[in-house]
Structures are given as structure tokens and as C-alpha cells.
């Protein structure tokens, strides 16, 4: 009987290691990256409104503001309907002037790393 129980427990543990033992650490997706070159964005406070407004859109995945390069980079989901014209308008409505805007339709979204599984999670606990 002990032998059977040991076999069953070993099988469960092995099964769990098989399921959880080969986790996908990286998930890659293709999105749209819109980069706007702007002028007048000289302080952190000036750019706060941009972050807040763009984050209200469901199809905006992330926004990156670079004061050094005077750029606003907006990562859109692949099916986003936000046009360059609309993005320029939003930036303009926040008091910042867009000089140039470009769209990368084949943007490799930064790869997300899932937390490394612990020893116990590998064992199925």
C-alpha cells in the first residue's frame, strides 16, 4: 500500500513539474509605436497632462516621455484607431507643439518577463 501511495505522489509531483517546469518567461507582441517630436516640453509638469490624457485611452499600452530628446512615444495596441492627426491634436491641446510624428507599425513590444518560479512552485505547490 505504501508503495502505491509513494508511486501516486511521485506521479503527481512529476506531472506538476512537467506543467510548471517549463514556464514561458517572455511574451512578445507586435504593436504600433508612434513617436512625436515636440517643442515646448521643457519641464516635468508640462508633460504630466500628456501622460494622464493618453492613459485614458484603452488602446494606449504605454507612454514614454523624454525631455532630453523632446519626444513623446506612445505604444498603441495593434488594432488601435488613434490616428497621427488625433495624437497631434491631443498633444496640441496640452499646450505642446508637434514638429514631426512617425508611426512604426511593426514595433516589437518590450518583452515582459514573468517572475521566476520558486522551487516550491516547480514542485506544484
Amino acid at each position, binding site marked *: 500500500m505504501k508503495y502505491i501511495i509513494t508511486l501516486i505522489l511521485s506521479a503527481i509531483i512529476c506531472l506538476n513539474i512537467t506543467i510548471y517546469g517549463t514556464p514561458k518567461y517572455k511574451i512578445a507582441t507586435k504593436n504600433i509605436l508612434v513617436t512625436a517630436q515636440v517643442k*515646448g516640453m*521643457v519641464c516635468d*509638469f508640462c508633460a504630466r*497632462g500628456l501622460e494622464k490624457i493618453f492613459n485614458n485611452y484603452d488602446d494606449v499600452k504605454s507612454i514614454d516621455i523624454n525631455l532630453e530628446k*523632446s519626444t513623446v512615444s506612445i505604444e498603441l495596441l495593434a488594432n488601435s484607431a488613434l490616428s497621427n492627426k488625433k495624437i497631434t491634436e491631443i498633444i496640441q491641446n496640452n*499646450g505642446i507643439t508637434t514638429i514631426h510624428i512617425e508611426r512604426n507599425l511593426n514595433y516589437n513590444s518590450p518583452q515582459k518577463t514573468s517572475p521566476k518560479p520558486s522551487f516550491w512552485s516547480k514542485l506544484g505547490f
Partner: protein
Amino acid sequence: MKKILIIVTLMLYHYSTQARPISYPGGWTIMQLNNDQKNRIHIHYSPKMNYSIGLAIERKNNNQLTNLQLNQLIYRRNTKYSQGNLYLKTQPGIIWDKKQTKLNTRITISGDWETRRYFSQYDISGEYTYQKQTQVNQKLRLGVAAYKANYNAIHTWFMIQINSKFKNNQFQNHEITPLIRLFKGTVLTEIGLSLNKKILFNIIKRF
């Protein structure tokens, strides 16, 4: 204890008139300004980038002034490395003291120009209290950033503020205040000590 709680609450949720008087579209702002002469709280809403409407309450010399405030961005000039603004602030209000109530109006023209390294601001305001007095205040601020900080980093500025006051066409005084401005994200703090040993302390919160 209640007073301390109120003061702490205000400190946590305020925004100074030293920063831009208009927020982003749809943004609410609560400001508080504290110095040796007055304590002021101002709540405003910016429907668009070029104006804000609000209510301000100010305590000064045992008087309480309550006024509406309309801030308008008259002109903005953006360049790749700088931004310049011209604002008009109109504040019709009522002043209460222990004896009576009077109408009060203040109009301010404010201009600023800044880069990531340098900051300058000049304000001139005229204040008229019905059958009482006319007061003109000027303020000049010059600043330099300790380093060029990027977005979300801690920004550190060294500034000097010069105030001069005229009451009924008579010069009153100058006040020179060196100060440090620190900000990160939506929180801005200013700490200064004037040459006359008067403390300036502002905490700013934008939301």
C-alpha cells in the same frame, strides 16, 4: 489638534501660485501658498489648456479675502528648448475684516520663460479695495537647475525671488528670498528664507 489636522490636510493637497496657474484640460488643482504675509488656498479647474476658473480664500493681516479667479493664457511660445507664457489673472472678490465687508479686485499679468536649465518669471499685480487702498506688487523670480533631470526624476532648482510693494503710490518694501525648489512627479516643494529671516514654504500637488 483639529487645526493641525486641517493644516496637514491642506499641505498634502496644495499647489502653489508659483507654478503655472493653468493645469491640463480636465485637471483639478488645489493650491496653497504660505509666507509671512498671507495664507492662501485656491481651487481651480481647467476645462482647456488656455484658461482655468477657481475660487480662492486668503487670510492676510486678520482679514479674509474670498474671490473668484479666472486665469487666462494669453500667449504661449514653444521652441525646441524653451517655453514662454503670458497669463492674465482676474480676481474679483470680497474682503472681510472685523469691522466691515468690502469689494476687492486684483488683476495680475504674469510672464514666464524657461528651459530645462533656466527659469524666469515676472508678475505685476494691481489690487484695489473699495474706498480703501490701491496696492501694486511686483515679483521677479530667476532660477537655475542644478542638473537637467529627465521625466519622473527628481528636479532641483535654485531660485531667487524679489518682491516689491507699493501702497497708494508709496513704496513699501523689497523682499529678497533665495529658495530651493524640488519636484518629482506631481509633487513640488519650495523652501526659502528671505534676507529678513522670513520663511517661505510651499508644497504643490497636481492631480
